[in-house]
């Protein structure tokens, strides 16, 4: 049974990890924790449904449509909300992200209805057995894509001009500005990038966890995963997500399903108390 717990925990964790990546990518560069990210996931999955059902687009085109609009939406948030608020306290920006999330959620509820919508699977949900373990291609796709996204991010940040500008802003925004990097433009890219990550997560998980306007509540698990892994570490986001998924599933099986959230959040609190920078994060000294 432990093997099955690991498989299921890793699948659930990969979903959290994808969301956590979106949080970390954005936070490292902008310091903003975007609490509307979960709802952006939901919006992107709905965009696929809209393209398919109302515009008769093929699945691949619908996905492309969703990714492009999601990236545009992220940039629009930066330009329309965050840039005007750039001199406001960080708390105001965070509250603005909460408002964006709530507006998206209620907008989707009003326009698409409160009930779940069917979404096609990227790979088949029919299971197969391997070495006594039940594996589901649709779930494996989530794990695979999470790893592929992380690898692509690593390559992009290290080897492309676009990525190096982001890393420069991550490390020292003032220094980056002095050498000619447009920090506001990098911020806009970061918002677009985190929105695309949320879109990928949303499109992948919507058929697995059922698409409804409230699907974005999973964002809070992604946030917890990001804290667990270290809020400034991209590999930490993946590890935190997987660890949270396994902890939840194991707690549910071995202790009690009613206690699984309590146990996994207790783990999170313990981690914050003992390792405030997270499992993979590094402490960032601030000059005062």
């Amino acid at each position, binding site marked *: 049974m432990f093997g099955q717990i690991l498989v299921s*925990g890793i699948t659930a964790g990969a979903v959290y990890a994808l969301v956590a990546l979106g949080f970390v990518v954005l936070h490292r560069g902008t310091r903003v924790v975007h609490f509307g990210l979960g709802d952006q996931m939901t919006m992107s999955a709905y965009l696929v449904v809209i393209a398919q059902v109302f515009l008769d687009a093929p699945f691949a085109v619908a996905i492309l449509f969703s990714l492009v609009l999601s990236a545009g939406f992220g940039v629009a948030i930066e330009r329309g909300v965050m840039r005007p608020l750039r001199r406001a306290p960080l708390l105001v920006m965070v509250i603005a992200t909460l408002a964006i999330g709530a507006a998206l959620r209620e907008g989707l509820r009003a326009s698409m209805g*409160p*009930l*779940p919508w*069917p979404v096609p699977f990227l790979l088949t*949900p029919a299971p197969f057995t391997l070495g006594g373990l039940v594996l589901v291609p649709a779930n494996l796709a989530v794990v695979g894509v999470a790893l592929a996204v992380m690898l692509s991010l690593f390559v992009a940040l290290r080897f492309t001009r676009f990525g190096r500008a982001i890393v420069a802003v991550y490390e020292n925004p003032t220094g980056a500005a002095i050498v000619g990097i447009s920090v506001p433009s990098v911020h806009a890219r970061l918002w677009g990038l985190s929105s695309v990550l949320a879109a990928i997560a949303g499109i992948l998980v919507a058929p697995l*966890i*059922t698409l409804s306007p409230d699907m974005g509540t999973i964002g809070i*698990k992604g946030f917890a995963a990001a804290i667990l892994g270290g809020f400034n570490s991209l590999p930490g986001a993946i590890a935190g997500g997987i660890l949270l998924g396994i902890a939840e599933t194991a707690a549910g099986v071995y202790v009690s399903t*009613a206690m699984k959230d309590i146990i996994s959040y207790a783990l999170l609190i313990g981690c914050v108390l003992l390792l405030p920078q997270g499992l993979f994060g590094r402490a960032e000294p601030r000059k005062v």
Partner: protein
Amino acid sequence: MITRRELAAGAAGIALVTAGTREAAAQDRTGVTDNVLKIGVLGSLTGVQAVFGQGNLSGVQIVFDEVNAAGGIHGRRLEIASVDDESTPARSIAGFRRLVDDERVFAVIGPSASAIGQAMEPTLRAASAVPVLISIFSSPAATEPYKNNVFRTGPLNDRLQGKALADFALDVLHGQKVALAQQTDEYGRRGGQSLTEQMRARSKPLVATEVFNLTDTDFTAQLLRMKQAEPDVIVIYGFPAPAATITRQARQLGLTAKIIGSNATSNRTYPATVGPAAVGVMNVITLADLPERPTDPRMQAYVQKFTARFPDLARQNRPDLGDCLGYNGAMVFAEGLRKAGRDLSREGFIRAMESISNFETGVGLPTTFGPNRREGNLQARVLEFQPDLTRKLIEQRLQAQP
């Protein structure tokens, strides 16, 4: 010194005042004028429970529009005062007070969700003069304990539904090892508790009980534990999103038991949301006919009216369960007004509602109230999902005992 004559006059005066007060109480005409009757509609139009509140309001709008187009009831046009409780109990309580105290409505239709209704129980009990009709939510709190002013029809009370589901699992599905997955909120807890008690009462205790949160997305832990008990019937008492995922993951993990879901999962898109794993799965539904393929002309007419009045909602695969129940409830309410006659008072309306017997709308199941009966519907139908993922009503029904 008081003379006999003065004493007699005093006694007669007191008798007159008392009788007058009784008469006034019986003649509470709040919200009634010669040509208008003002009715409050309370429900969750936004927030997580919005599907139910929208159904409540849309049903009232369709029925009242039709009534008004035909000249009203006994010469009075029906006017709606609507309040959105935003899926929050505190706002629902405030909304109810606003309708009753500020808007001075004659009666209230709603609230619309179990979690709200449970919290509103003391408020509904305290407003003992105000007739209230519940037509969507199924928490027993609406009618238990008995409240003279609160009627419910449409859904099957969760306490009764849990019992009836246990009987159905044993008598129709012939379950030997029945397991339960219940949502942790008011809805799942009430239904699950009742089912558990009935299984125990019939000497077939549940082989496994697992709980889940409305926002949970992975149910492996629950299902792996359940699998160890090797159930042949699994009852899911919860909302569509988690229930759909549980059903899919149960099949993926090799659970082959017959799965039956409670009334909340009987939305039209449910089988498509679950996917191929839905084939053979059953759901309780408290409708007389299916809105997506109506056979009853009355359901056909309702679907046409809904589609014409709410084209935006129709694009969302509606009317669905909540909409149909809202319409059914509004029809029952209008029937109560017709029976109450031109000389309308709140007390008279309550007596008129009590006289409704076996009233059929073709959309909901038959309604019968009585002097001590406030649950209008005591039965439910059962759906089975076909290989093409369509829904089919089966012959056997759930029959509850009050």
